């Protein structure tokens, strides 16, 4: 027999001013199954909670309804109170008579009637509630960090330094990501390599970090604390154990004219190569697409000169299976393909560069040794035009967002140019200067006031070549007149875009992404580094355009989330999950398809001798997040959702 206790809270005047609580209590007292109904000024207060606990014990209540504020406010409070009184917390439900009743209606009589109906229907529901136990899942204390740029390295180091194991997976042959390509970094102008390479080395040498470079994520299964991840380690054709990184092979490789990715096409590399001189690990890989041996079966020059016999043309991709407790996604970004901007001549004119190419030109380790010269003729440019928002903030070209870093790096470029060429002129076409950040506005001011950056507010409409110059025509919207600049070089501040395959990775991981392919956080403001999938976190520009400080901060935030997870032996999860009735399931797998979390598996039902009888759906409690989409699909009513069962909802509706 149900013995339900109904506790009507006045919430001071908030409820009681509109809802006649005494009348509500009287109405509930006569309702079948209600053992007691009480009212009180503040049930959330200490004495209020105590009175509920006392009533639970005294009347041997089998269910509790607190008619009060929204369950989003105090459901946890009252469930905890019930648990402390020895009642299963899931036998407590909240009737929302404040936010959805007293606060939104003027007429007291009507509000009271509504409050009675709301409370009555929840009494009917709670009579059908079941005792539920939190689901305990073990935690594997090993993190997977995907992406070896600054964000991934920071997250990996923070986790490893706190004692957690880390597997750091990088798609390229070396750690470093985009930060390794940069010249100097705003707003302090310290050399990127100088601050980046020590971190790369530290990560590679860390006893708690296992480094898998030239590797990609193949498959992710499982759930928080218990992921099973398969990583594809691509064939390097160089035995990492034998190779000493002497570089002899790269000297001798005859395939020398391959456009180098690291230098953004401004310099060539060989077919056996390390991406850059400070690569970590500093051991080469063979690019089988361009290697002469792989193309026509002859050459093997590298193999001949290798003093340690490390070259192995037979090598194949390897699949590495990992048990993982938490995943940090730090896959970074790409710069937008500027082909969309035909009017800016990228690709047609060799001296029209992207910002990232300019970084390579300005970098001391770059193809020109840090000298800013024109790719076309090697001359020092006398005038450089920088075009901001080349792609960003232009919905007509498909990118509505601000890439966030371009204002700052363009100011930096103008400064670097002036530092290297004291007579150089720079003109910067911009829409707005967005310099929010510590020391950022001061930095752009410095570019203008000390380093002669000439800002022109307006867009560039046309760019063409004339007498060896790049003619740039635009508008100066502050002066309200057209401007034309004869430039020697043009640098486009191209938009930051997600990695081209980010959506596929999102699907592999089971995390959401936006229309562009940036990964979705669980809550933009309050849960910025978590994803909607428990145990998977986001760091750096894979979530949205970010600069280095933000990426590092977010990476450390991820590490703290991972470490909080690792601080426990077992995890407790809300038991609001689906359950299947195997007796009535026909195995049509509609639920399997509908499930957003791949949480429903196919299970064999066998007889005692092990013969297959039939196959039915089975819910993986660790993966299920409790949305109930499967329940609605199931025609035979076989799957049900604990906490929101068919019986409960039926009773709730029929109680209205």
């Amino acid at each position, binding site marked *: 027999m149900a013995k339900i206790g109904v506790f009507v809270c006045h919430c001071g005047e908030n409820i009681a001013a509109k809802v006649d609580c005494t009348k509500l209590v009287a109405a509930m007292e006569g309702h079948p199954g209600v053992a007691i109904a009480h009212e009180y000024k503040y049930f959330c207060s200490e004495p209020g909670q105590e009175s509920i606990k006392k009533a639970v014990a005294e009347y041997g209540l089998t269910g509790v309804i607190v008619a009060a504020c929204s369950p989003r406010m105090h459901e946890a409070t009252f469930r905890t109170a019930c648990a402390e009184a020895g009642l299963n917390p899931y036998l407590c439900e909240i009737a929302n008579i404040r936010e959805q009743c007293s606060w939104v209606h003027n007429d007291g009589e009507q509000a009271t009637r509504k409050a009675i109906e709301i409370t009555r229907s929840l009494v009917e529901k709670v009579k059908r509630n079941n005792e539920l136990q939190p689901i305990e899942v073990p935690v594997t204390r090993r993190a997977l960090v995907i992406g070896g740029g600054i964000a991934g390295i920071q997250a990996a180091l923070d986790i490893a330094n706190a004692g957690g194991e880390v597997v750091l997976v990088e798609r390229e042959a070396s750690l470093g990501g985009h930060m390794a390509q940069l010249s100097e970094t705003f707003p302090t102008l310290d050399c990127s390599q100088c601050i980046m390479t020590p971190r790369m080395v530290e990560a590679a040498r860390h006893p708690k970090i296992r480094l898998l470079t030239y590797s990609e994520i193949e498959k992710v299964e499982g759930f928080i604390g218990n992921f099973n991840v398969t990583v594809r380690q691509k064939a390097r054709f160089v035995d990492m154990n034998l190779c000493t990184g002497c570089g002899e092979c790269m000297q001798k490789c005859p395939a020398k004219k391959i456009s180098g990715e690291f230098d953004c096409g401004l310099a060539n590399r060989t077919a056996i190569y390390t991406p850059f001189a400070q690569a970590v690990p500093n051991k080469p890989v063979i690019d089988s697409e361009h290697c002469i041996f792989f193309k026509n079966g002859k050459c093997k020059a590298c193999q001949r000169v290798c003093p340690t016999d490390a070259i192995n043309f037979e090598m194949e991709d390897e699949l590495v299976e990992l048990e993982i407790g938490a995943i940090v996604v730090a896959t970074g970004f790409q710069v937008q393909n500027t082909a969309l901007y035909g009017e800016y001549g990228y690709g047609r004119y060799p001296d029209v560069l992207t910002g990232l190419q300019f970084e390579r030109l300005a970098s001391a380790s770059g193809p020109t040794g840090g000298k800013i010269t024109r790719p076309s003729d090697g001359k020092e440019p006398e005038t450089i035009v920088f075009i901001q928002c080349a792609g960003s903030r232009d919905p007509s070209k498909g990118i509505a967002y601000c890439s966030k870093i371009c204002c700052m790096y363009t100011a930096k470029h103008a400064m670097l140019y002036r530092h290297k060429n004291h007579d150089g002129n720079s003109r910067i076409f911009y829409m707005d200067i967005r310099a929010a950040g510590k020391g950022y506005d001061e930095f752009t001011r410095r570019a203008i006031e000390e380093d002669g950056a000439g800002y022109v507010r307006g867009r560039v409409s046309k760019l063409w070549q004339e007498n060896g110059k790049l003619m740039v025509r635009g508008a100066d919207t502050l002066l309200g007149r057209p401007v034309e600049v004869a430039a020697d070089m043009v640098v486009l501040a191209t938009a930051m875009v997600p990695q081209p395959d980010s959506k596929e990775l999102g699907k592999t991981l089971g995390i959401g992404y936006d229309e562009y392919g940036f990964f979705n956080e669980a809550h933009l403001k309050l849960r910025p580094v978590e994803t909607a999938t428990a145990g998977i976190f986001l760091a750096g520009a894979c979530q949205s355009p970010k600069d280095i400080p933000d990426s590092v901060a977010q990476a450390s935030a991820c590490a703290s989330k991972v470490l909080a997870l690792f601080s426990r032996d077992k995890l407790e999860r809300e038991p609001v999950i689906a359950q299947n009735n195997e*007796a*009535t*399931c*026909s*195995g*049509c*797998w*509609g*639920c399997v*398809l*509908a499930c957003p979390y791949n949480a429903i598996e196919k299970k064999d039902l066998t007889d005692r001798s092990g013969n297959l009888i039939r*196959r039915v759906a089975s819910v993986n409690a660790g993966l299920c997040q409790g949305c109930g989409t499967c329940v609605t*699909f199931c*025609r*035979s*009513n*076989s799957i049900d959702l604990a906490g929101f069962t*068919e*019986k409960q909802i*039926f*009773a709730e509706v029929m109680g209205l």
Partner: protein
Amino acid sequence: MSIQEQYRSRAKELLGEGSVKMVIGYGVGTTATRRRPIFITSPDETDRLVLDASCRTNLAGYLLREGLLADQKSIAVFLLPDGVRALNILAAESQLATAQIVVLGFEIKGEEVKPLEGTAAGDFSAIIAERKEQRKAQPSHEMAVKLEEMTPAERFAFWEKEFSRCIKCYACRAACPMCWCRRCVVDNNQPQWVNTSSHTLGNLEWNLVRAFHLAGRCVECGNCSEACPVNIPLHLLNGRMTDEVLTAFDHYPGADEQQEPVLASFRKDDPETFIL
């Protein structure tokens, strides 16, 4: 050789060589135009098979008799194109493997019965694709058009009258090749979503739920309307669902055996004009 003879000898051959253990086909019924399903396991019995323009029942559902396909042996079945679509859906919903089914396909044009080339479910994709286009172009049933022209109150009254006759015999369910749930929702009494009494409200609920459960799965074979002892035009409800999934989601039920169930899949740009 008549088509009936042709198919009898084909059946004889299949049973004789042992490539199928059973042929499900049509036999004579209690009236001149009534056909009843027959289940033949011996080559000597194939003379009992009838194939003429009265063979309109969709036999696909008989394949689901519990345990019938469990021994992995093959079964041949007489199927109209809509029957093949039903077979595709049963395969898509993992209720059988088409590899086990030999299709004896035929179509009826007017009063003429024509053979269809092919033996596996997948062999009939061309005619199914053709029927999809026809279905798209074809206006709905005459009565359905009339209903759409009525006011909601008139439509409600129409269905109230129709459903008031329902006696909840569940013949529609028994005849439907898509009604194979181990437990029908109406038989679940915890909770009792569908009123089982045969008052009009309960009848309305039952028929709405059945039509909804058939959305995107009904091949419009007509078994249900044919089986209904009180002549409720059930095909109108199911046809309306087919119109909807076809126009809204370009889903033609049973187009192939890889087809995802229309209500267990989605596209982000599905139409939503009715959502506020």
